[in-house]
């Protein structure tokens, strides 16, 4: 089983689902047994969602959409 330091190193790759099966299993075992890391893992999940929502921008301006359409090749 990995320790807290390794779990911290693996946290982002774990969330990105790029760990090997063996690493993933080790990380999950550690998270099951370690409330310190589990708390931080849950925070990281909340944080990703929060960042994604926080940076939502205004929709593309209609005028720009129109300009892009006008760039299309004219039909003969």
């Amino acid at each position: 089983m990995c320790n807290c330091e390794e779990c911290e190193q693996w946290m982002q790759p774990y969330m990105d689902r790029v760990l090997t099966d063996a690493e993933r299993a080790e990380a999950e075992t550690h998270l099951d047994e370690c409330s310190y890391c589990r708390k931080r893992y849950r925070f990281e999940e909340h944080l990703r969602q929060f960042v994604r929502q926080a940076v939502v921008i205004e929709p593309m301006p209609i005028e720009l959409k129109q300009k892009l359409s006008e760039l299309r090749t004219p039909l003969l």
Partner: protein
Amino acid sequence: MSETTREPEARRLATAARDRVRFEEDALALSDQVYRVARHLVGSREEADDLMQETYARAFRSWRSFTPGTNLRAWLLRILTNLNIDRGRRIQRQPDSQPLEEGDYFLYNRLEESTDGPTDEDRVVQRLSQNDVVEALSEVPHDFRDVIVLVDIGDFTYADAAQILDVPIGTVMSRLHRGRRILKQAMAASAVGGDG
């Protein structure tokens, strides 16, 4: 030219025209998603607007170089990031010149320290405001921000991000790793204060 030789040629032209129209429709249908990423890659709305028009003009000119069945959104963003670099909007710098950043638990620990009483993950994340995130993201150097924007906001895979930015996949992974840490440091500084 006889009627018999003109006919296949006419058919070929009709097929090409139909393919081009379909390509342009597909590309335009993705414009909201491309804009969303573009808006985070450049500093202002005006720059994003210009870049979008240049990108689509080039895409429509060179539509034949797109391979049907591959990722059109990634293809469009590859054009966009190349144009962004070509226009000199970005100063290329060496990512390794960045100072070492804190670990992955740094932000949680900083927020928890500054929260009175018992804490849970929900309460800790509530210490952050939307503005903290937006400001922090703008402080992340471009090389790192690009991968965060593509992977964490644009939902691109590591492989797509590597293709768009024309860097090896290992570079995407290392920039993402460091970029997220830099982002967390900036969020901590914004939310809690101090030097992070």
